[in-house]
């Protein structure tokens, strides 16, 4: 088959178009684009992975407008069954976002907690404030999470918890978390954090024994889930700063509140 610039080739539902001119001896694989009309959507995929593109060698070192290629359609059809936008893994997103120094993050959080303790003096009050701060973060964070991770709507709460642990924690904190201990209904689970960047260098003194140092995390989860219509209760089960051997959060789904539209006037 020979293609020149602008040539379109249609074959059994596949339309290929030669996008740009190619230089002598080389077919830059990026310059080919295929428009596949196999499904109602038009998927546009680069043919860079097609192995059977063969270069055409010309005798004179001029720009070539024509080239000979042979294309393996069977390989290309396999690509069509891929979803156009797949959800991205937590690792991939974490690798792509701008990073900040981890110590800066840890020290800033520590400064916040210290200041709250100085201002409020009561450990319970500080716990509540940290939770509230986390809630305010969570209601905004959820949109960023949904935009960057491309996750689709979760079918049930189990999937939600898995997504929080595997994608959410990885994406924002860079930590791996796992979900365990599901109850019979599937509404209550435990998220175990393998490590926690907030508590680097931290030791709780005796005067602050009731403090949940990482309470902001429970607020974040609660706030984020509330924006996707799930009312939850998030509490710390085990906290390494208090002497336990792991960080464990219990996430309990209280209610799933669907969108309500005021169809009837209140009487």
């Amino acid at each position, binding site marked *: 088959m020979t293609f020149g610039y602008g040539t379109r080739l249609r074959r059994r539902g596949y339309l290929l178009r030669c996008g740009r001119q190619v230089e002598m001896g080389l077919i830059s694989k990026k310059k080919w684009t295929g428009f596949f009309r196999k499904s109602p959507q*038009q998927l546009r995929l680069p043919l860079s992975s097609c192995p059977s593109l063969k270069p055409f060698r010309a005798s004179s070192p001029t720009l070539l407008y024509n080239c000979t290629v042979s294309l393996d359609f069977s390989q290309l059809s396999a690509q069509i069954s891929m979803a156009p936008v797949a959800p991205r893994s937590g690792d991939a997103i974490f690798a792509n976002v701008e990073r900040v120094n981890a110590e800066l993050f840890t020290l800033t959080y520590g400064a916040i907690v210290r200041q709250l303790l100085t201002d409020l003096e009561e450990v319970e009050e500080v716990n509540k404030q940290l939770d509230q701060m986390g809630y305010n973060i969570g209601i*905004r964070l959820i*949109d960023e999470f*949904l*935009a960057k991770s491309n996750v689709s709507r979760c079918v049930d709460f189990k999937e939600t918890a898995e997504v929080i642990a595997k994608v959410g924690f990885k994406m924002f904190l860079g930590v791996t978390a796992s979900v365990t201990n599901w109850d019979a209904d599937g509404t209550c689970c435990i998220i175990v954090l393998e490590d926690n960047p907030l508590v680097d260098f931290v030791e709780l003194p005796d005067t602050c024994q009731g403090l949940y140092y990482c309470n902001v995390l429970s607020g974040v989860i609660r706030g984020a889930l509330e924006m*996707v219509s799930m009312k939850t209760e998030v509490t710390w089960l085990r906290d390494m700063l208090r002497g336990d051997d792991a960080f464990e959060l219990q996430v309990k789904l209280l209610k799933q509140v669907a969108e309500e539209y005021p169809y009837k006037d209140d009487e």
Partner: protein
Amino acid sequence: MATIYSLYVINKSGGLIFYKDYGSAGRMDTNDSLRMASLWHSMHAISQQLSPISGCYGIELLQADTFDLHCFQSLTGTKFFVVCDTGTQHMEGLLKHIYELYTDYVLKNPFYEMEMPIRCELFDIKLSQAIQKDSVALLGR
């Protein structure tokens, strides 16, 4: 030729929080744009109820004689919709990109109150860049 006429962002209660128009055709004053936003919000909600397919999340594309309307709803209920010329391609990609810009430049602004009209300069700048880049890219095809 691919042209975008206007962009609307609606919060989850149906209130218009952002409106920008680009083309001379279909320019609307404030009241009309607010009306359009609430109209679309209601239609979107009704379409979910009317749909014969279960698990429908609302209208994604409205095609008319003189314009197309592409809508994207996030899982949190915020809707982004763009009124453009008939046959414009890749509006879904643009809407997703605008959603990302919203999460970065609006939601991360600590002085932005949730569900209130967007008055963030950075968002406006980045949005114009995105729309311009998109028009240039579309023209290049």
